[in-house]
C-alpha cells in the first residue's frame, strides 16, 4: 500500500519536470512605466535592468523590476555590480516584492538588438533559471506613437544546437533550423491591480485627445525612416561580407577536394607501379599532408543574426510606411474638405 503510494508520488514528482511551454508574458503596468522611464532617461545610451516576478504554469508574470547602473569597463566594478544586485534583491524582499529573477530588459536603438551578446546573456541566465525572457523596449519607435515592447526568448531547438557547439550546415539542415527560428517572440499581456486601475480612472484627464495621439499623427516620419534605411544598408553590407566568406570557404573546399583526388590518384598509380615491382604498397592516406587538413567552416551564427536584424528593419519600415499612408490620406481628405 505504502509502496504504491510512494511510487505514485514519485511518478507525480517526475512528471512535474515537464513544464508547459511559455505562452504569455504578463507584465504589470508598473513595470512598463519603470522600463519606459529608465530607457527614456538614458537614451540614446543603451541600458539594462533586471526583471522580477513569478513563473506560473504557462504564464510568466513580471511584477517588478530594477535598473542596473551603467558600468564602466573596470575590473572592480564587476564585483560592485553583483553587490548592487544582491542588495536590491534583499531590500525588495523586505517589502514583500517577488524576489524571483525571471529575466532582464534592455533598451535598443531602432531595433538592432540581435547580437551575439544577447545570446550569451540568454545562455547565462538559462543555466540558473528555467524560464527567462528578455524584454526589449525601443524608445525611438515609441516616439512615433507605437508602444514598442517585445518579449523574446531563445527557441529550445536553437539553444540545444548552440550549446552542443554543433553549429554546422549539416546539423542545421537536419533540424531544419533557419534564421527565423533563433528568437521566439512571446505575446505580452498587461495586468494592473485594482487599486491602480481605480487611481488611473480617477486621475485620467478629461480631454479625449492625448499626447499619444499627437505622436501618432505627426506627419514627419522621415528622420526615423532615414535612420532605419541607414542601418538596413549597413546590415546588407555585413550580410554580403558574410556571404563572401561562405563563397571563399566553398571554393577552397572544392579546391582541396580536387587536390585530394589528384593526390589519391597519384598514390594509386604509385602503388600499382610498386606492386608491379613487388614492393609494399604505400598507404592511401597521409594525415600529415596539408591538403588533408579539414578547413574550418565559417561560423553561421553571425549571418543568422544579421538576417534577423534585417528582417526587423524591414518590418519596422513596413509598419511606419503603413502609418504614413493613413496619415497622408487623412491630410488629403481634410484638405479637400
Amino acid at each position: 500500500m505504502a509502496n504504491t503510494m510512494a511510487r505514485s508520488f514519485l511518478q507525480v514528482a517526475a512528471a512535474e519536470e515537464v513544464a508547459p511551454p511559455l505562452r504569455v508574458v504578463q507584465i504589470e503596468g508598473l513595470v512598463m512605466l519603470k522600463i519606459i522611464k529608465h530607457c527614456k532617461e538614458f537614451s540614446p545610451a543603451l541600458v539594462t535592468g533586471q526583471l522580477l516576478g513569478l513563473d506560473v504554469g504557462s504564464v510568466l508574470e513580471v511584477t517588478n523590476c530594477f535598473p542596473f547602473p551603467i558600468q564602466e569597463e573596470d575590473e572592480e566594478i564587476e564585483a560592485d555590480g553583483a553587490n548592487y544586485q544582491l542588495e536590491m534583491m534583499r531590500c525588495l524582499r523586505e517589502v514583500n516584492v517577488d524576489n524571483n529573477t525571471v529575466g532582464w530588459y534592455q533598451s535598443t536603438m531602432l531595433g538592432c538588438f540581435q547580437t551575439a551578446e544577447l545570446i550569451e546573456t540568454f545562455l547565462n541566465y538559462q543555466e540558473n533559471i528555467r524560464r527567462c525572457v528578455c524584454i526589449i523596449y525601443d524608445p525611438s519607435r515609441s516616439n512615433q506613437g507605437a508602444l514598442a515592447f517585445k518579449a523574446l526568448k531563445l527557441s529550445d531547438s536553437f539553444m540545444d544546437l548552440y550549446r552542443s557547439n554543433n553549429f554546422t550546415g549539416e546539423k542545421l539542415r537536419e533540424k531544419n533550423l533557419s534564421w527565423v527560428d533563433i528568437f521566439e517572440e512571446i505575446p505580452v499581456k498587461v495586468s494592473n491591480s485594482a487599486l491602480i486601475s481605480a487611481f488611473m480612472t480617477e486621475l485620467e484627464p478629461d480631454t479625449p485627445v492625448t499626447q499619444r495621439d499627437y505622436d501618432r499623427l505627426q506627419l514627419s516620419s522621415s528622420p526615423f525612416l532615414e535612420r532605419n534605411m541607414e542601418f538596413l544598408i549597413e546590415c546588407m553590407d555585413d550580410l554580403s561580407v558574410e556571404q563572401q566568406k561562405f563563397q571563399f570557404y566553398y571554393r577552397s573546399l572544392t579546391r582541396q577536394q580536387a587536390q585530394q583526388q589528384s593526390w589519391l590518384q597519384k598514390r594509386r598509380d604509385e602503388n600499382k607501379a610498386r606492386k608491379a615491382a613487388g614492393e609494399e604498397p604505400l598507404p592511401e592516406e597521409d594525415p600529415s599532408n596539408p591538403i588533408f587538413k579539414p578547413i574550418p567552416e565559417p561560423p553561421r551564427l553571425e549571418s543568422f543574426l544579421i538576417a534577423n536584424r534585417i528582417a526587423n528593419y524591414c518590418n519596422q519600415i513596413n509598419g511606419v510606411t503603413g502609418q504614413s499612408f493613413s496619415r497622408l490620406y487623412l491630410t488629403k481628405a481634410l484638405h479637400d474638405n
Partner: protein
Amino acid sequence: MAASDRTVLQFGPSSAVTSNITAKVHPLVIFNISDCYVRRPDQAERVIGTLLGSVLPDGTVDIRNSYVVPHNEFSDQVALDIEYHHTMLKSHLKVNPQEVIVGWFSTGLGVTGGSALIHEFYCREVPNPVHLTVDTGFRNGEGTVKAYVSVNLSLGDRQLAAQFQEIPLDLRMIEAERVGFDILKSTSVDKLPSDLEGMEVLMERLLTLINDIYKYVDDTVEGHAVPDNSVGRILSETVASLPKLSPPAFDKLVNDSLQDQLLLLYLSSITRTQLSLAEKLNTAAQMP
C-alpha cells in the same frame, strides 16, 4: 504647552517662500506607492517611503521615483528602518545620481501625529522635504493625492509646532498618456496594440471629435446652443492653421510623399526576398 490668550501665532517668514513651491508628480510614483500598499505586511495600516527627484531651477519639486521603507507604528511612536532607507538610496543613486531625496510619502488621508516625527527625520536629510499623501482608502469617495510642506510656527522666539501647509500639486500624466490609459486602466489587457490597430482607434476617435465639433457648430448656428466666443475663436484658429496651399501644389506634395513611402515599402520587400535567398545559399549548399 501653555499659551496665554493674547499671544499671536506667527507664521514664520518662510511662508512667503513655501507658497512658491509646487510639486510635480510623475505617474510612476503613484503606481509604485499603490503597488507597495497592496504588498504591505498584514499588520501595517499604511506604508511610508522616500520620494526621489530633483528640484527644478524655478523652484518646483519634480518627484520622479520612490521606494518604500519598512516601518513600525505604535500608538504614538514610529520606528523607521533607517539603514534600509540609506541602502536603497545608495543603490538608486548608483543608477541615477541626479535623483536625490526630495521628501517622503505616506498612504492615508490627512496628516497624523506620527507623521510629524517622520517629517522631522526627513528634515534632517533634506532642507525642505515635501510630504505626499496618497489616499489609497478612497475615503472621500475618490483617491486624493496631496502634497504638503511643513512650516514652522513660532511664538515670539519659541518654536511651537510645525504646520503642514498644502502646496499645489501637478500630476504630470504625460508618460501615462504615452503608454495609453486604456492599457493602464483596465486590470488586464490581452495584447498590446500593434501600429495599425492603434492608428485605427485613433482615426475613429478623431472622427468622433470632428463630428462633435460639427454638431456644436450646427447647433450654435441654428441657435440651439449658447454661442461661446472663445470656443468659436479657437475653432476658427484651428481651421485657419491648415496651411494654405493651392490644390496642385498640395497634391504634388502628398503624392511625392506617397511615392517615397511606396519606394521604401518596395525596397523592404526586395530585401526580404534577398534574405530568403541568402539563407538558402548558406545552409542548403551541399558538398559532394
